[in-house]
């Protein structure tokens, strides 16, 4: 026990804390500037000096720890004098331009100067002068206002791990600058901006358009960019989102946001958003009334159902839709149309991967806390760069690496380049061989946990693959590989982080089996990266052709019957088509009507031309979206939807955390679930929902994993399913898992040629970022990354335009030389135009039903 006396008040602590923490716990305010809760003590600003009995010098309370019997005084004459002196020093060079500084009103220096500072200055010299820097598209830097607290630099180094900023020069000439000079060359997390106590780093997005006291509302909500679901606060004025900031209640992202969360909010205000329904007349989309549009949709769907049967209708939903939207959508298709033809983007990789793991280990096996990653004793990343797909989750890996946890990355490391012990980049089939070899290796070093004898048997039945073969196929150094295998075998509770690139391949089913084996043998936790905010929610809500809400298979009759009874409707019993099958069926004219909710199929599937043809082939295409997307351009009816900031609802993140999205501004469209309810009503199924809580209440009645959850529970931010403690499926049914024929994969992988692989891109993630001018402005040009060897051979310099051709098509892209790539790999990110999907041939892996990306070899150059 440590008892400390601060200003006469005795406080006792169990663990050592700093004087500042102790004072705050006692409700005593000590002013600070360089201190930030997310950062380590720095002791630079000297504002928090306090007097400690028997210590001659004043001490900084932010760095000094309390000890038993310590007597601290925070308001003595000496302390107050020191505080005033420090503030005077800070103000001698700080411009007094508060009238037009964006920080005014929330500036820490301004507040402190008012509270403690001298009323007049004695500094008679001229202040330091620097021009304000506007070279960056998103961030304005003002060196004159900077007080060198270095919070931005420390945030960038210690928390974000980007190390993009530095203090340059010395003493009174010191200043903060990106290493890249004028423009930032970084991840644009903007966390430097959120920790800046003054107006030295400000956002261009709301320049001179933001005054904290003029904000009408602050809405605490959840980010809608990816499956991590960070808490953030939208600040609103004149029905417009003026700014997004990390919440004051730090949420589980602890006050950290990524570029999308911080700057991507401008897609809400994007002027191109749809405001009225559009209907195709004489080949053109023309504005119509809501009533016209909805009646037309209902009648056309009814017609098609009558003439071609219910299964001629299908629905696809986006991972950006809420649980409520998703639930009503599947209920509509099943109850009102009578088909199980329902799937979502989650059906392209996230869903099949989860299904595979649940099949072996039971439901919820991939439900793991994001914070658990940095506490594991090893990290194995495969199938995508987590710092681009789920950036805030990616930070966990970086922080683990800093703690000395070994990180292994298979695939392009992207933002983990400086944060991994081993990195192996190769072609997709060679990755499979590598996984097979790793399983063989780990198998030799570890005994079976014995929990799942059936799985033990499968693993025993796998063909042993020597590391040497994997080294040959993957063109790796054997010693390096042996080293990595040893690192891996030594892990006892690793985090295995899996991205979609390992699933969307011809050998995806094998990869999943090997990864399951590794997870099993190493006692690993599996994380599935999720590119969209509610992929998990879509699965939970039953937006799958063979699953009902709460992940219950359609085939289990008892559950189907119970659903039918609860809802008073009849559910079709034969499984429907999944996403890939729908596109193929559309291609051959078997799908007559397709209802697309928020999804841009034309841009999220491989082989853009093939998908466009399929969409053109659909007799009646309805698209409900915020913008006239590529898919919407093919539609017969387009309905304006609402963005996440314009409606209420819930998202379920990749951890299974159920979170509320709150309405911040009024939109011009109608909530997705409401539109569907209207159509459903005309088709004879009256859902009777008055508002979103009615929908949610029904979800909690139907789904045992959402049982007893209410919006009030969720608001606390700690609501994980299964909430009511409902039982999860443990019906592992591993029999029937095909043992992979690794020999043929090895043969395939030996075939030469240049493999085109996807690079997950932080600023180009699915369709929302396409409508954020801010995110688009950071790196607007599509590119192809290639190895130095290949570039040299073809005499290509960075910045040259090169043609990339495959059997699916060809595109011309700016070249980018990346020394860490092997010769036979080029990377193309999924840009809207000039993205990877334009050069990937349509091919489906029939064993997990996902469209694959590894079908084609590319030719580079003319």
């Amino acid at each position, binding site marked *: 026990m440590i008892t400390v006396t601060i200003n006469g008040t005795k406080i006792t602590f169990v663990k050592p804390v700093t004087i500042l923490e102790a004072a705050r716990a006692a409700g005593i305010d000590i002013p600070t500037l360089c201190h930030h809760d997310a950062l380590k003590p720095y002791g630079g600003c000297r504002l928090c000096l306090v007097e400690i009995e028997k210590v001659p010098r004043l001490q900084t309370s932010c760095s000094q720890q309390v000890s038993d019997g310590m007597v601290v005084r925070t308001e003595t004459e000496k302390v107050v004098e020191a505080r005033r002196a420090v503030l005077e020093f800070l103000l001698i060079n700080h411009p007094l331009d508060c009238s037009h500084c964006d920080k005014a009103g929330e500036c820490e220096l301004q507040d402190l100067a008012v509270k403690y500072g001298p009323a007049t200055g004695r500094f008679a010299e001229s202040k330091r002068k620097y021009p304000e820097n506007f070279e960056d598209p998103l961030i304005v830097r003002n060196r004159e206002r900077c007080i060198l607290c270095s919070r931005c630099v420390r945030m960038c180094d210690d928390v974000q791990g980007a190390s993009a900023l530095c203090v340059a020069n*010395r*003493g009174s000439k010191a200043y903060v600058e990106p290493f890249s000079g004028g423009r930032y060359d970084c991840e644009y997390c903007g966390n430097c901006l959120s920790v800046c106590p003054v107006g030295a780093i400000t956002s261009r997005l709301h320049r001179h358009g933001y005054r904290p006291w003029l904000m009408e509302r602050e809405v605490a909500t959840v980010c809608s960019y990816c499956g991590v679901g960070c808490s953030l606060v939208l600040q609103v004025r004149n029905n417009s989102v003026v700014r997004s900031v990390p919440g004051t209640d730090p949420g589980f992202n602890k006050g950290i946001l990524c570029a999308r969360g911080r700057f991507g909010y401008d897609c809400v205000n994007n002027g191109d958003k749809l405001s009225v329904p559009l209907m195709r007349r004489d080949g053109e989309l023309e504005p119509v009334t809501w009533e016209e549009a909805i009646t037309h949709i209902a009648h056309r769907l009814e017609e098609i159902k009558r003439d071609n049967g219910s299964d001629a209708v299908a629905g696809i939903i986006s991972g950006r839709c809420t649980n409520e939207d998703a639930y009503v959508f599947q209920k509509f298709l099943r109850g009102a149309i009578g088909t199980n033809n329902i799937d979502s983007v989650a059906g392209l990789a996230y869903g099949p991967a989860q299904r595979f793991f649940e099949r072996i280990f039971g439901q919820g096996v991939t439900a793991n806390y994001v914070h658990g990653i940095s506490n594991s004793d090893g990290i194995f990343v495969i199938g995508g760069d987590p710092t681009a797909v789920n950036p805030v989750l990616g930070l966990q890996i970086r922080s683990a690496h800093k703690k000395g946890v070994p990180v292994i990355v298979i695939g392009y490391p992207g933002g983990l380049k400086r944060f991994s012990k081993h990195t192996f980049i190769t072609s997709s089939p060679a990755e499979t061989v590598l996984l097979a070899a790793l399983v063989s290796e780990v198998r030799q070093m570890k005994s079976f946990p014995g929990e799942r004898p059936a799985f033990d048997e499968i693993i025993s039945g796998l063909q042993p693959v020597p590391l040497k073969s994997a080294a040959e196929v993957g063109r790796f150094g054997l010693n390096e590989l042996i080293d990595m295998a040893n690192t891996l075998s030594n892990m006892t509770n690793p985090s295995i982080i899996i991205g979609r690139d390992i699933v969307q391949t011809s050998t995806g089913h094998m990869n999943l089996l090997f990864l399951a084996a590794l997870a099993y043998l190493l006692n690993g936790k599996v994380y599935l990266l999720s590119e969209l905010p509610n992929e998990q929610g879509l699965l939970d809500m039953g937006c799958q052709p063979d699953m009902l809400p709460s992940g219950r298979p359609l085939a289990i009759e008892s559950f189907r019957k119970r659903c039918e009874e609860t809802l008073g409707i009849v559910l079709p019993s034969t499984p429907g088509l999944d996403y890939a099958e729908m596109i193929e069926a559309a291609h051959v004219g078997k799908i007559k009507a397709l209802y697309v909710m928020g999804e841009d199929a034309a841009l999220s599937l491989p082989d853009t031309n093939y998908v466009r043809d399929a969409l053109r082939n659909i007799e009646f295409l309805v698209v409900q979206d915020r913008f006239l997307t590529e898919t919407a351009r093919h539609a017969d009816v387009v309905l304006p939807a609402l963005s996440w900031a314009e409606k209420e609802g819930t998202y379920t993140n990749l951890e299974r955390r159920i979170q509320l999205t709150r309405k911040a501004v009024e939109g011009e469209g109608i909530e997705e679930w409401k539109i569907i309810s209207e159509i459903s009503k005309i088709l004879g199924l009256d859902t009777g929902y008055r508002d979103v809580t009615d929908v949610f209440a029904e979800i909690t009645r139907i789904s045992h994993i959402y049982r007893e959850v209410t919006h009030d529970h969720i608001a606390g931010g700690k609501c994980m399913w299964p909430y009511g403690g409902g039982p999860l499926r443990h019906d592992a049914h591993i029999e029937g898992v095909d043992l992979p024929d690794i020999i043929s994969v090895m043969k395939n992988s030996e075939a030469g040629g240049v493999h085109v692989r996807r690079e997950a891109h932080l600023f180009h993630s699915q369709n929302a970022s396409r409508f954020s001018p801010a995110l688009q402005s950071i790196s607007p040009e599509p590119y192809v990354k290639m190895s130095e060897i290949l570039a040299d051979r073809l005499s290509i310099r960075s910045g040259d335009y090169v043609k990339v051709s495959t059997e699916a098509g060809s595109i011309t892209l700016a070249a980018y030389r990346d020394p860490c790539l092997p010769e036979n790999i080029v990377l193309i990110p999924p840009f809207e135009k000039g993205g990877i999907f334009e050069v990937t041939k349509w091919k489906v892996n029939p064993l997990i039903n996902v469209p694959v990306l590894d079908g084609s070899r590319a030719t580079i150059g003319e």
Partner: protein
Amino acid sequence: MNSRESVLLKNADRPGPAGIDEYGEWGGYRSLHKALSMEPGQVLDEVKKSGLRGRGGAGFPTGMKWSFAVADPQTQKYLLCNADEGEPGTFKDRIIIEKNPHLLIEGMVISAYAVGAASGYIYLRGEYPKAKDILLRAIKEAYEKNYLGDSILGKGVVFHLHIHCGAGAYICGEETALIESLEGKRGQPRIKPPFPVNEGFSSKPTVVNNVETLANIPYILEIGGDEYAKIGSPECPGLKLFSVSGHVKRPGVYELPMGVTLREIIYTHCGGIRGDRKLKGVIPGGVSTPVLLPDTIDCPMDFFHLGKVGSMLGSGAVIVFDETVDMVKVCLRITKFFEHESCGKCTPCREGVSWLRAVLERMSNGSGRGGDKDLLTEVSNNIAGKTFCPLGENAAAAVQSFVNNFGDEFKEKIKSG
């Protein structure tokens, strides 16, 4: 000049550095042999008994510093030699390195053995390229003779020595800033605690000693700690190098026992003031130490006594001013130095010292204003006691000492301006 044969300044008056053979002929590396025949704890005890205090400026007892590092349970430890000699007026470490590099190397190997460090770095001032070449050659020689390496003298003792050159920042002479710089980071001081002896280079226990401190170690081993403690002042005994510059007849580096008076240094060893002018003031230990008036020059030069007259021994860089010197200009020059060398981490040093310089500059230019003398006092008082590290503290103390001791001159400046 003194009866004792030079220890630290051996070879100083000859051209070129002493090679390993020459060093051996003088009995070099004999102390290392002796040390390795003892237990590390016994070596440490000898150093403790010697009463040796750090020669870099702060005067921390060397044996005590070592014992903290020894007590830390971590096994990987480092020994760093602070050769970032940057204190204006100081040129003593350079002469050791350039004339007798093996003395430093031997001192380091013995020290590393005592503290249990298997590797060490010499953080060398960037402006000492010649010293670097000399050290590199000497280290190579020491490796060849098995005084460095994986089994020193075949006794299984491991010590590897590397050189790292600074990039011109005075602050990197501060031990935690030195460590930051050595780790490849921006050179600025760290929060203490943790102290380097527990969490230093690469977060491992690290002993940082000055060149001169380490160069004393072989001699302590040779004559024994008790014998060494008999040299000079009883409070802080030992040999001390004094770099004397300014208006004396014979400026230079002098090896003298601790406790010698300033008067002796100036008038006996250095032959008195140039042109037999009157002494106006003297800085006893480099510009970081407050200036003294002529009436205090009978004070013994050691860590203990100089504190009593309001100054410090610092690095032992004696800067002598005769009666012709404009003390406002000296004060401005010193403040400019501190302004230039402030790392910018803490507010009072970064902003305050540059403010002091601005005021002194205008006084010096003849455009001083009424109240400027008081302003100097107030601003330096506002810096004092609030800075992160001693740099800003010393800058303020320097100005305070000049204003206090030569106040009339400052007043005169304003009037004449």
